[in-house]
């Protein structure tokens, strides 16, 4: 897995946010479209794409897209 692909998967979860505005350093909770429902789709995406379990605290304690990526990376078998 690589960061670029992860960002692409992450950006794909939004309907109205332009994908190329999302970078590794983006504070994802500041994205206007961010909501608890998008958070659920993040959990579904990491399960589907990486077979990794994400808990509520993983998202609550992360700030940037790269923070999320690092958690996935640490759990990929």
């Amino acid at each position: 897995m690589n960061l670029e692909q992860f960002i692409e998967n992450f950006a794909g979860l939004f309907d109205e946010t332009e994908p190329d505005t999302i970078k590794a350093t983006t504070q994802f909770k500041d994205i206007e479209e961010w909501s608890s429902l998008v958070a659920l789709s993040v959990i579904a995406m990491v399960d589907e794409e990486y077979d990794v379990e994400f808990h509520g605290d993983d998202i609550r304690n992360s700030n940037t897209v790269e923070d999320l990526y690092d958690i996935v990376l640490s759990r990929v078998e």
Partner: protein
Amino acid sequence: MAKITFHGVGIKALSACVPPEVIYNKDLGYLVPEEEIEKTINNIGIIERRIAAPDVMASDLCYKAAQQLMADNDIAPDSIDVLLFMSQTPDYRIPATSCLLQHRLGLPRETMCFDISLGCSGYLFALSTAFAYASMEGINRVLLLDGETFSKIVNRRDKVDWPLYGDAGTATLIEKGDYGDSTFMLYTDGSGEDTLKIHAGMRNPITPESCVEREQEDGNIRSDLEVYMDGMDVFNFAISKVPKSIKQLLKEAEKSVDNVDYLIFHQANRFMMDFFVKKLKMDPDRVPYCIHKYGNTSSASVPLTISSELCGKLDGNHTMLMSGFGAGLSWGSALMSMHDCKVSPVIEY
């Protein structure tokens, strides 16, 4: 691992009852920003829900459902040997509501009655209990009443829980008969106790303070007597456990999703169920939903979905898969041989 197989026992009839009062999620503007309402409705898949009046309990909805079932199928009260009431919103702390229902339904004093308490997984666990009793010598018929009125234990200003829950009561009649194999697989993980919880009880005694509504995480408002749910943790739990456990059940029963005529999920939220369907590669046409009309009715949602969506469709033989998951954490599935199951349409009370 609790893997149980029954033979010669099955579901003879099923019915459900909901309150007439409709709550529309489009009216949640006081709780969810207007621009997010439509998105929320599409995502959770809940357009409207039914809410019980202050003087209507889960037991009342179950009572009406049971009366309907008995009338539609000519079931004599004295032919019922066991009555089970599955609910987390019983009438009283003492006595068990099943005892009250025995009297109200005119069942004989020889009827064995007890309550079962579990969250959204409850129907599967209670159904396995009903099957177990119906398998025993001396027991012919078990009446399982599963109902919840979560509207009474969810705060209307809790934006995680309030848009989801609705109220319903159901009745399922289980009996000995010419039925094929039914297999249950049931699981528990109590390390997740905090994921879905009402804090006040015996360990945290109820005081006047417990009734005070307070602002909690993310501006949600609730008292210690009302349901808390960590939506993200529940979602993670469900998507990581449910599809796997269903695959395991099919494997143990040497079947595939193609052998399943109907797959009934606990109606938790639409986004989650669609995810399961995709993950299991199940034909969506064989996965009935009623969440758009009734919301998440906790453990009553599996039998409510059958009554709402499969009325008149279960004559002859069918293979049905049911799956429930929720507080505990607790989850389970059953692969059921259905034979001429008489389903009454949903009634109102």
